[in-house]
């Protein structure tokens, strides 16, 4: 049992111990003073931007058939160093989203071109070169999300952008649908991905053992990656307000079962469906899961992409 107050103090202490020295105040102050003087050039730059934007609008209207998301004809040339950096970013994002074996593709484009593809219209405003990276796997983002839905729905695709020369990312959330990166330019394959990841093998082994222990070694097994709260709500519909967003796998085993480990008065419970949660693999987390044996089949498809394990 961990007290959040103590845990916060302990973590804050560890965070402070690793904190680097603050930046030089005098240099920062020089920049602060310059920022005041820069107002006039900024206004001038803004005026120039407006003129250019107006010209762009006129040019776009002069060619009504033009598609702002049309890719450039020239192929993308990527240095090996840039490719390595992108692969590292994609791998970290995949690990953070719970599937280190996700595949990843990238395309070099601009902010406005990407926004145009996403929204169907050119948003105008500032532009700049970016990489758009798309992951495909069993992805789930359980925190760090500030969108309208909380948490975002799980989905097999995750798209984010990386500014050229920076590591910060603009993140668009998980989705059930892929973004057609080819419309933005030449697609670069970053991570190949794997289908039979060790995670899947572990789940399959666990489910097979559970099925055999409960009397049906030939059972059908499927799983979906979700949160504990969502799994609990789907399985029990008792307390959908549970806010435990730990990522878990919800496994459903279909067969003819008798609970061999249940203890209590009366006959051993029987049923055709076992539902159980397993903590997300690869995060070293222990989650209080549940195990149920009933005759009610759960519609796992409501929670995300269903994987058939056996």
């Amino acid at each position: 049992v961990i007290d959040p107050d103590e845990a916060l103090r302990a973590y804050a202490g560890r965070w402070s111990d690793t904190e680097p020295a603050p930046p030089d105040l005098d240099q920062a102050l020089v920049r602060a003073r310059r920022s005041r003087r820069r107002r006039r050039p900024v206004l001038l730059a803004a005026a120039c931007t407006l003129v250019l934007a107006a010209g762009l609008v006129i040019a776009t209207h002069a060619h009504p058939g033009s598609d702002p998301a049309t890719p450039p004809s020239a192929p993308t040339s990527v240095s090996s160093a840039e490719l390595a950096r992108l692969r590292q970013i994609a791998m970290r994002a995949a690990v953070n989203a719970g599937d280190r074996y996700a595949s990843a593709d990238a395309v070099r484009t601009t902010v406005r071109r990407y926004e145009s593809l996403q929204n169907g219209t050119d948003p105008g405003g500032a532009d700049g070169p970016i990489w758009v990276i798309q992951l495909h796997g069993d992805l789930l983002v359980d925190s760090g999300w500030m969108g309208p839905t909380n948490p975002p729905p799980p989905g097999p695709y995750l798209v984010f952008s990386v500014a050229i020369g920076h590591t910060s990312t603009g993140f668009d959330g998980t989705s059930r649908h892929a973004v057609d990166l080819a419309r933005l330019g030449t697609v670069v394959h970053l991570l190949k991905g794997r289908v039979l990841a060790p995670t899947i093998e572990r789940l399959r082994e666990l489910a097979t053992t559970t099925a055999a222990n409960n009397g049906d070694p030939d059972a059908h097994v499927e799983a979906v990656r979700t949160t504990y709260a969502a799994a609990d709500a789907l399985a029990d519909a008792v307390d959908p307000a549970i806010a435990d967003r730990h990522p878990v796998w919800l496994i459903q085993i279909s067969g003819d079962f008798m609970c061999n480990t249940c203890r209590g008065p009366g006959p051993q419970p029987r049923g055709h469906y076992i539902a159980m949660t397993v903590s997300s693999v690869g995060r070293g987390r222990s989650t209080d899961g549940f195990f149920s044996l009933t005759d009610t089949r759960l519609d796992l498809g409501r929670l995300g992409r269903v994987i058939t394990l056996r």
Partner: protein
Amino acid sequence: VTSDLDTARPTDVFAEFVRPHWDVMTRLARRLAGDDWEDVLQDALALAWRTRAGYDPTRGSARTWLLVLVTDQARKAMRRRRPLLELVDDPVDSVADRDLDMERAVRSLPERQRIAVELFYFLDLPVADVAAAMACTEGTVKSTLSDARGNLRARLGGSYR
């Protein structure tokens, strides 16, 4: 020093005004703004420089004033940017994994709860100073912190009680 903060002040006097609080400003920017912390810190300093004539020492300490500026700039940055997927190293042990969970849980708190947590736990400010920085009473800070801890319990689940 603070009573002389006006537009005619030399830069070095302003620097000495800020210097005792520069470290805590930096820490707050790092906590609240993630990768954007340098921009947030710089913007807050620039704003402090531009508005130094408006600083009223009778309404609060210099530290509180500067922290409010950092918080405001961080809030703007949070609302301006897209939601971020934090790129962190893969945790290699249970403590690092637990810290990662805590960090994510803190970042997912509602804005005021998160600011209260950052000021109280990570900047180690007393409740009175947190109240001054958040422009509310000490009782409100305590209840906000209590709500935040409740939210963290729910978010972290498992053995957090």
